[in-house]
């Protein structure tokens, strides 16, 4: 008996047990925080699947799913967004197409152009290099918000306001991308480039055939950030392409959600009883592509953050 209790207290004091206990405590705390992070998403998904005429105004909280009803996900594609053009195709779907077009041009164009400039600053010596590089730095310090109004006026004058050019042209190059890719390119050994030059490769071939393929990790990280940035951008489309036919996904979503007033109770209903379900379905569908991309590429994202966050 005494031996047993003795071993018990010894076990309690032992380093291993303390470590194990500490670890369990950490897991509990971290999971608790994780719960707070994920709960809004969980509740949104559960709410989007509720049965028709579910009473969202009831004074209790249903934490568990009550149905698996996809009607909202179907209805979102035929729902008209207030202020949108009367078109057969839904404003949200139209926004998807517009956003995908922007993504394709901006992600491909800016990754290529920034990689070119990054190569120049990483591997070439040319008069004015230091000066030009510090000119780029200035743009980080000055907040870009100052340029919003003049750009608006400028695009208005040139007639590009309300066209995608107003979003694409300023996004084709950026300090962030040049820095990120340059950081990576400077680790490529010069001997490799010399060898290619001796073999008769032109400078352009050196960049596109040798350096860019080697810098794919950095370029992919940049492309990833750009993709997420363009997908979630609200301010740019709001100011520069605020035309119903040109709405991006976020803008369509904004006008769609803005028509929902929650403060007078959440559930004055449509005829099918899936008003709220449709709203949540819209939010989820618009976030799905980014979630998918994040789940696949999260390692690159994290390394990108630590690279640019601390060494940029």
């Amino acid at each position, binding site marked *: 008996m005494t031996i047993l209790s003795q071993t018990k207290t010894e076990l309690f004091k032992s380093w291993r047990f303390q470590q194990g206990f500490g670890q369990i405590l950490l897991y509990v705390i971290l999971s608790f925080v994780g719960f707070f992070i994920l709960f809004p*998403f969980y509740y949104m998904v559960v709410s989007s699947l509720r049965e028709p005429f579910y009473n969202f105004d009831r004074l209790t*909280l249903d934490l568990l799913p009550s149905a698996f009803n996809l009607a909202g996900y179907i209805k979102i594609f035929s729902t008209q967004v207030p202020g949108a053009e009367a078109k057969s195709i839904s404003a949200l779907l139209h926004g998807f197409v517009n956003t995908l077009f922007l993504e394709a041009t901006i992600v491909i164009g800016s990754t290529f152009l920034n990689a070119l400039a990054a190569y120049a600053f990483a591997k070439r010596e040319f008069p004015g290099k230091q000066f030009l590089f510090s000119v780029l730095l200035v743009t980080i310090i000055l907040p870009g918000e100052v340029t919003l109004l003049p750009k608006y006026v400028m695009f208005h004058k040139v007639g590009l306001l309300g066209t995608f050019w107003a979003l694409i042209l300023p996004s084709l190059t950026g300090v962030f991308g040049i820095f990120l890719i340059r950081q990576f390119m400077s680790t490529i050994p010069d001997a490799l480039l010399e060898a290619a030059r001796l073999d008769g490769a032109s400078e352009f071939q050196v960049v596109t055939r040798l350096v860019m393929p080697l810098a794919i990790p950095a370029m992919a990280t940049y492309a990833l950030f750009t993709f997420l940035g363009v997908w979630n951008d609200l301010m740019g489309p709001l100011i520069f392409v605020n035309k119903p036919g040109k709405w991006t996904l976020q803008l369509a979503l904004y006008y769609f*959600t803005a028509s929902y007033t929650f403060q007078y109770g959440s559930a004055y209903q449509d005829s099918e009883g899936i008003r709220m379900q449709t709203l949540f379905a819209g939010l989820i569908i618009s976030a799905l592509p980014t979630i998918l991309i994040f789940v696949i590429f999260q390692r690159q994202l994290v390394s990108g*953050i630590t690279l640019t*966050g601390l060494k940029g």
Partner: protein
Amino acid sequence: MSVIRGTQSNKKRVEIRKKTLWRSIWKERFTYLIIAPAFLSYLIFFFYPIGFAFVTSFTRFDAFQIQALPNIFDNYHRAIVRDPLAKTSLLNVFKYVVITLGVGQSCALILALALNSLKRGTAFYRTVYYFPMITSVVTIATIFRWLFGSDPSAPINTILRLLFDMEPIRWLWESKLVIPIIAVIAIWCGLGFNTIIWMAGLKAIPPEYYEVARIDGASNWRQFWSITLPLLKPVMLFQVVMGFIGGMKEFGLPFVLTQGGPAGASTTPVLLVYQYGFQNLQMGYASALAFLLAFLLIIASLVQFRIYGKSEAYD
């Protein structure tokens, strides 16, 4: 004589140097070609707009028509002295920055410390915490507009009533609560990102320091205060400067959540620039506001660099 000869040879040397400069520029013409898009873009979409905004901030520039102001500093006078909304917006973002930096960064640091001493599953938690960061501001603001509804049946009011038997609160419609709520939502959003940054800072601390401290018998608490925190100074500087600049420029959350309401209680400087410039088309005044904000941000970040030490900390 010798002096003249000296100047002559100097001239020659300058000429030769000029020639070699041009030659090396010509030699690197491909390099200039590939950096040209970036600089062309900055000229057109950054430097020219800034100059234009600076000029128009001294004029009445309503609905695309430039007119002279009776007093060229009138827009600035209006922003600093006469417009109560400008002052309110500044106070709002100050409050917002204090909460997001103080509470948000402490939470992120604690989480980073916890994740760092975890044996397994770090990547899993990191992924979970990063989740809100990839979701758009429209989505997030809409979820929280619903969760923080003012109705008694809104989710958070319901939770509080069920758990603590509290009366419903009008959350986003209470002028004193609206900024703290927006700050809490922003903290929730940025937690994953900030935790990753702090974790990178923690990883950069050489483990030998802790070993030596342990041999000397320093407690965990002591190790944190004497090793971890001082060595995290560069990360702290980064977080404070970035958090400050980002917070002062907040636009999306208040725009979607409240449109700056109730009665300007959640308006921010960038939101004001948007409302004056793009909704009321008072572009001269909006430019002046934007410049005041830019000026403030530059001064503040310079001061912060000074306080937190020399630039070596930032490298």
